[in-house]
Structures are given as structure tokens and as C-alpha cells.
């Protein structure tokens, strides 16, 4: 048997040997070379993506590191002072009183007119204000309300003159607020950039001091006046 095989090989080795070489080459190509080359190409793309991602994250971390935490907190506080996350009734009352006094008006009543309403991300609550003051200065008073740092818009005006350049004025004011966003971006998300306009606006907001709230209405004096 062995001798026959050897004889067979010797007779046909000129065909057998190339066939063996071709078969082994094919096996090497199919099972090793081709899959490895495909994997190399795939991994090359993955490597490029990974490197890009790591550069992006390192740059992002560097930008966040450079931000001064105290300054950022102050800026956020100013922005929230102007457009807070919740209804700030006391702040509004104090602010409206200040604006009224500055414009020469006296406030007789301030009321919250309705429950908050809003669509999307912007909410507002209505404030009603009854005042008395010079009719000729009403435009200035309204401009003072709408240009205040706190975002407010006059929604209705009712003017009834009661004397020479004196009028009873009833104003409806929409005061805006918005709950904080639910998500603040992921690790992969891009950081928002503050433009020159944003910095100017922040400077304008931070230049106005926060309105001091009106004095509390707690009772004063001795607890027992007969002592």
C-alpha cells in the first residue's frame, strides 16, 4: 500500500505537488490572510473614531477645567434672577414696587391673577397691579417694567383719569419663568458656546443688583403688651 502510494506520487508528483501548494495557499488565504486584512481595515476605522473621540473629550475636559466655578455660578445666578426656574412672587412684588416708586407711581394693590400657564419650555404667571400716578408718565412706567432685568411683559392696561394728570391705572403683567431642563447633556454632547452677545447680556444682568424682598409682615412689638 505504502509502496503503491509512493509510486503514485512519483508518477504524478508534477500534478500533486502544485495541487498541495495551491490548496495550502488557499487555506492560508481564506482562514488567516483575508480575515486578518478585513479586520485590520475595520479596526483602522474604529481606531480613527476612537482617537477622534478621545481628542474631543480631552478638549471638552480642558474647556470645562478652565471655567472658573465661582464666576460661572455668579453668571447662572444672574440669569436665573432674570428668568428663574419657579414663581418668585416676593421678588416680583419688590421689583414692581421699586419701578413704581422710580416712575412716580404709588401701588395700591398687587395680586396674582391666574395660575401659571405656558407651552413648551416657557411658563408665565399673571400679576395684577393697581396704581395711582401721573397719566403722562404711564409710558415711562410701562417701559420701566418691560425693561427690568426680570422678564415681564404688560398684558393689559386700563387707565381712568381721576384728576389733572392723575389716573387710576390697572396693569396686567405676565411674568415669565421656566423650569430647569431635565437633561444637561451627556458626556459626548458638545458644550454650548457663549458668544460676545451672551457675555454682554450677562454683564448687563450682573450689573443690576437683586431686588431686596419687601419687609416681612410678621407682627412686631411685645408678645404681651400688659407686661
Amino acid at each position: 500500500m505504502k509502496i503503491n502510494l509512493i509510486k503514485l506520487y512519483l508518477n504524478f508528483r508534477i500534478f500533486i505537488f502544485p495541487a498541495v501548494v495551491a490548496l495550502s495557499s488557499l487555506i492560508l488565504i481564506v482562514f488567516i490572510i483575508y480575515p486578518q486584512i478585513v479586520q485590520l481595515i475595520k479596526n483602522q476605522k474604529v481606531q480613527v473614531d476612537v482617537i477622534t473621540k478621545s481628542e474631543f473629550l480631552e478638549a471638552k475636559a480642558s474647556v470645562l477645567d478652565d471655567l472658573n466655578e465661582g464666576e460661572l455660578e455668579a453668571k447662572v445666578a444672574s440669569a436665573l434672577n432674570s428668568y428663574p426656574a419657579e414663581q418668585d412672587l416676593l421678588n416680583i412684588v419688590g421689583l414692581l414696587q421699586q419701578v413704581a416708586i422710580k416712575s412716580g407711581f404709588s401701588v395700591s394693590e398687587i395680586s396674582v391673577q391666574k395660575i401659571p400657564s405656558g407651552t413648551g419650555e416657557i411658563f408665565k404667571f399673571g400679576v395684577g397691579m393697581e396704581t395711582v400716578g401721573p397719566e403722562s408718565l404711564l409710558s415711562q412706567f410701562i417701559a420701566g417694567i418691560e425693561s427690568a432685568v426680570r422678564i415681564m411683559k404688560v398684558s393689559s392696561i386700563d387707565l381712568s383719569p381721576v384728576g389733572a394728570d392723575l389716573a387710576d391705572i390697572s396693569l396686567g403683567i405676565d411674568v415669565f419663568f421656566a423650569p430647569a431642563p431635565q437633561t444637561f447633556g451627556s458626556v459626548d454632547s458638545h458644550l454650548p458656546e457663549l458668544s460676545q452677545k451672551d457675555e454682554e447680556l450677562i454683564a448687563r444682568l450682573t450689573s443690576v443688583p437683586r431686588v431686596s424682598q419687601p419687609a416681612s409682615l410678621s407682627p412686631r412689638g411685645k408678645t404681651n403688651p400688659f407686661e
Partner: protein
Amino acid sequence: MRLPIPWQLALHYERRCNGRSMEKISINLLPVEFIAEEFKRRKFYKIQAIGVTIVLFMIFLSILTLSLGVLQSSSLNAASLRVDEAEKRVSTLAPKQAQLVLLKNRLQVIEGQIGIPSKQAEMYNLTYNLLPDGFLVNRISVGGEGQVQISALTANAQNIDRIISNLLDKGKNNDRVKNVVIDSLNRGRDGIYRINLKVETK
């Protein structure tokens, strides 16, 4: 002398004469089958050499691709470690990111609202400034849509014409007034005109 040369016999002879090389004579006495066998063997050796070269080349390629794969996976691991570290760094700075996002979110709205007068304020100012002298206002109301209602007195009928033409003049009303409606107009025994106007906005 020229001799015929049979196909199985190569006849070469060499004569040296006075140091000069002449024709060479060699006689191959091997059998034909042996020569054919020898030819086949040489051919096979050539094929064998080529085959071995091919196999060695394939082995070399395999080793090369495997090595490149190993190198690539190690550099990929290093890059992945860098990404993990950077992600950890960004995660620890998440509060700052949150503040920045909140700040930008607020600024975008504030920018669009601050210092911009409402429609109601604009209509009030417009109407008030167009009131002629001698037109005594009893009441001015500005509603939610910016429509204005004026209740006024005047002794001069021309003031009524004046206020209406002022309100309808596009040059004076900044193209904000759509319509002016006289809800009521009457003249009392005292000669005073009492008028209720409604100004509709665009």
C-alpha cells in the same frame, strides 16, 4: 571530415592543433528513457522551487497580517484607555457642564425678551401720542390682543375727525392699526361729544 549525426548520438570532437580549439566531440551513451526522466525531474525541481516559494510567501503574509493585527489591537486598547480616562474626567466636571447648559438655555430666552416692548405697550403709546389736544380721555383700555378702547369727551367735532385720521394714517400708526370702529358717538345738550372708539390692530 563531416560525419552524419544520428538523433540519439551527439558527436562532438575536439581537436587541438597548435593550441587552437576546434570542434568538440562528446558522445552521450545514456538511454532515451533516462534522458526523458532527467528532463521531467528538472522540470519538477523548478515547480517544487516555485511551490515552496509560494508557500513560504503565504506563511510570511500570514505572520505579517497576524502581527499587524496584534499591534493594531494594542494601539486600539491604548486609545480606548485614553477615551475612558477622558470620559471619567468629563464626568467629574458634569456639574460645570450642567451650569453652562442652563446658562445658555436662559440667555437664549432672555435675549429675545429683554427690552422688547409688548404689543399692548406699543399700542397704548401709539394711541396716546396720537390723541389731539382737547380730546379728554375718560378711559383707555388695552386688551390682551393689543386692541385699544377709548372713551373720551371733546367739544370740537374736528378732534374726532383728527383722532380717526391720525389712527388710520399709515405714516403715523406705524402700520399697526387695522381698523378704527366708533362704538358710540353722541352729542349732549352741553355740546360735548361723547365717543367710544375701538382700535383694532393688525
